[in-house]
């Protein structure tokens, strides 16, 4: 009966001050969207209530981003209705969404790297003009950064391009919560923690809880299921452009979420597989440049070696040093086989944006793809087709442009590039950033399979769960190896202890 009452209230259009669960900030009815022949969304009903944090999960390519672009006004649905605060919006657009207090932090970093933090704040606030606007913008963003990320160490006059990727993400999140003349009702956070370390991610999620408790609304998209389970009030699961489950967060657990997303198989295998005992021939021996004691990283044939620790503590530097050492001799590093690198920041270091999928896969294997002086298109296509089938790159045609793929599938292309090459050592620089759980599980299997065949993997990751796949884990702090853990002595506590503890 209370349900019915609330519905009547809503019809009266005075829902704002009544029961949180029934006062919708935004509601989409039967939203549909096609991109050419691809149906990205097929009739989705979705709503967000006031003072509610909605968790949105699903594979890459399940339609989450498309749905969020509609909520933010950057995409217009082909059919369906958008209702904001009970009023139907026929010409919904970005400025309209902003007027109504809907903000979005997109997955791709959307700061202007040539502008300062304050100037980037100004871009989202048309009202920051006139005399003294720089001071106002600087105060606005600095106060918000202080509130969300105490001890953030960012100045409002830093140029965005000079900041690390984690700090850029912090600025972007803080910017979405700054307030000038437009109201602030709903913030969409698309993978907000993908570039943050555990400490700052915790600060952010705590802030989100405070924001929601204060009556704000939030949509949280994350591939870290624990984050969604702990912080969302309600969880919506999407698959193949449809909502397949929507329920209170309490009624979900990890397994139910994974099952709903359709990526269940193979998860248990990781933990049960037995560690290898005998060590094969040496593949890599490397000492970080800043290492003062005798600790060094050692990898043998068929081993998966994890590089752990807080983000940006020298793991990437060591991987790059090993990569260089494969080409020419370098002091303190020994590499005995060809090397390939899977980049973490795929937009800037990984893909060739103008090229097709098959060209992106073939670039690391050009010597093998040659016929005479030229690259043979057939062999390139064969290689690409093989890997498309093997790791399930979702595309009708590998000669399509790489940008026709979703983020997770682009990352698969980078894996195919490395695994399809002659490299016996594969360096992975946190490659699973912002990749959905289904793709992750597929790639884990692939990595273990390739390791059994004798490939060596050096795997830097910021997600502790992924380290379960490794035979050996080195924990980094301030550019040095501070701990060296075998799989059987690996626990999250130990890693956190070494990452935060004093370097011995």
């Amino acid at each position: 009966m209370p349900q019915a009452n609330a519905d009547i209230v809503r019809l009266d259009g005075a829902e704002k001050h009544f029961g949180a669960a029934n006062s919708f900030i935004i509601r989409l009815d039967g939203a549909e969207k096609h991109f050419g022949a691809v149906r990205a969304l097929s009739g989705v009903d979705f709503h967000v209530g006031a003072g509610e944090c909605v968790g949105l999960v699903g594979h890459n390519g399940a339609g989450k981003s498309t749905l969020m672009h509609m909520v933010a006004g950057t995409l217009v649905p082909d059919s369906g209705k958008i209702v904001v605060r009970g009023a139907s919006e026929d010409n919904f657009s970005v400025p309209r969404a902003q007027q109504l207090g809907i903000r979005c932090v997109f997955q791709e970093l959307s700061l202007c790297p040539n502008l300062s933090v304050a100037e980037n704040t100004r871009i989202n606030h048309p009202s920051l003009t006139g005399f003294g606007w720089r001071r106002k913008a600087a105060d606005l963003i600095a106060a918000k950064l202080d509130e969300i990320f105490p001890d953030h160490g960012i100045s409002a006059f830093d140029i965005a391009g000079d900041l690390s990727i984690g700090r850029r993400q912090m600025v972007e999140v803080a910017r979405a919560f700054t307030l000038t003349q437009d109201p602030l009702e709903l913030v969409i956070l698309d993978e907000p923690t993908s570039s943050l370390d555990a400490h700052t991610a915790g600060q952010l999620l705590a802030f989100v809880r405070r924001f929601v408790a204060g009556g704000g609304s939030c949509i949280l998209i994350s591939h870290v299921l624990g984050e969604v389970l702990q912080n969302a009030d309600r969880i919506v699961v999407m698959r193949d452009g449809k909502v397949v489950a929507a329920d209170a967060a309490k009624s979900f657990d990890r397994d139910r979420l994974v099952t709903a997303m359709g990526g269940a198989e193979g998860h248990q295998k990781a933990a049960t597989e037995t560690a290898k005992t005998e060590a094969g021939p040496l593949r890599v021996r490397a000492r970080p440049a800043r290492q003062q004691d005798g600790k060094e990283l050692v990898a043998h044939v068929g081993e998966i070696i994890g590089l752990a620790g807080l983000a940006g503590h020298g793991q990437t530097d060591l991987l790059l040093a090993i990569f260089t050492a494969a080409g020419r001799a370098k002091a303190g590093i020994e590499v005995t086989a060809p090397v390939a690198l899977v980049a973490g920041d795929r937009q800037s270091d990984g893909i060739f944006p103008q090229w097709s999928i098959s060209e992106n896969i073939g670039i690391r294997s050009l010597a093998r793809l040659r016929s005479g002086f030229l690259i043979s298109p057939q062999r390139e296509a064969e290689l690409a087709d093989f890997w498309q089938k093997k790791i399930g790159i979702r595309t009708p045609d590998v000669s399509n442009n790489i940008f026709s793929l979703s983020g997770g599938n682009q990352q698969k292309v980078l894996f195919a590039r490395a695994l399809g090459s002659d490299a016996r050592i594969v360096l992975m620089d946190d490659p699973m950033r912002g990749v959905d759980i289904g793709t992750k599980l597929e790639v884990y299997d692939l990595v273990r399979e390739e390791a059994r065949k004798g490939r060596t993997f050096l795997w830097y990751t910021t997600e502790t769960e992924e380290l379960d796949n490794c035979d050996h884990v080195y924990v980094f702090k301030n550019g040095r190896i501070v701990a060296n853990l075998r799989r059987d002595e690996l626990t999250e506590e130990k890693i956190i202890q070494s990452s935060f503890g004093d370097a011995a």
Partner: protein
Amino acid sequence: MTAAAIENQLKGASTRNAAARARRLRSLLPALSLALVLLAIAWLNPRAISYFGFSLMLNLAIPIALATIAQMFVIAGNELDLSIGTFVGFVGCVTATWLKDAPLLGIVVLAGSIGVYALLGALIHLRNLPSIVVTLGMSFVWQGLAILILPKPGGKAPDWLLSLMAFKPPFIPFPIIAALLIAAVVHFGLMRTSYGVILRGSGGNAAALKRAGWSLLKTKILLFALTGLFGVLSGMALIGITTSADANIGNGYTLLAIAGVILGGGEFVGGRVSPIGAVLGALTLALAASPLLTFMHIPPDWQVAANGAILIIVLAARVLISRRER
């Protein structure tokens, strides 16, 4: 936990300071290269460092600085204008003929040409065309129009323009005052105003700007219109100095303007430009172009090549500093 946080903060501060230091060094480079050229001139010919010497040496610096600023606006939006040189020539021909004989017609034509620039910006944005292609085509259009207006070198600058460019303020030579004024006005407009942020942002991350609800069509039109405006000012200033026009008078300006922007710390993509740097770059080029080489007793036949060599040296120094940044 707190220890880690503090350490994190220190680490962030130090890497950022390094980046900021490198950037400061790079932003000082245009001033340094100008100082170096000035020192060389002072060493070779001390008498040149005087009111009269500067007025003479920097005579042509004003139109070069204006053309460089014009080029800087399109570069701020990740585009390139290959027609600015012939456009300056076209404006010169209009200034030396119609603007003197039929001022109203001259004003309409010059305002119209700024309008053409704005339309080019709209066309490039709407049809997603490469600006290099469009402006390369336009460079022949401007050149052809200039020849139609003034088939043979000649014409005469309007008197008010002549007296403006011949202005002799006390103590500080006019070209230096003009350069300071240009740099200050454009710096304020592009670097300090709130809409200037949007203009630069369109070169830095156009997609982000669009998502925030700004019109990219408007920024592109405005950047191109500003290029047209400063191109017009450059052509008029040039004729004010040379007193008569020639259809080919501005041809060298295209590459000179691009070099000036880059010399001044700008980059071809990413919206990273500096108006003050661009003016300094233009002054450096103007001085290195002929006064320095004349004092070095380099024969005129070799001056163009020597000019190029100086450009390569300065740009190489810039690349070396940027590389240290990483």
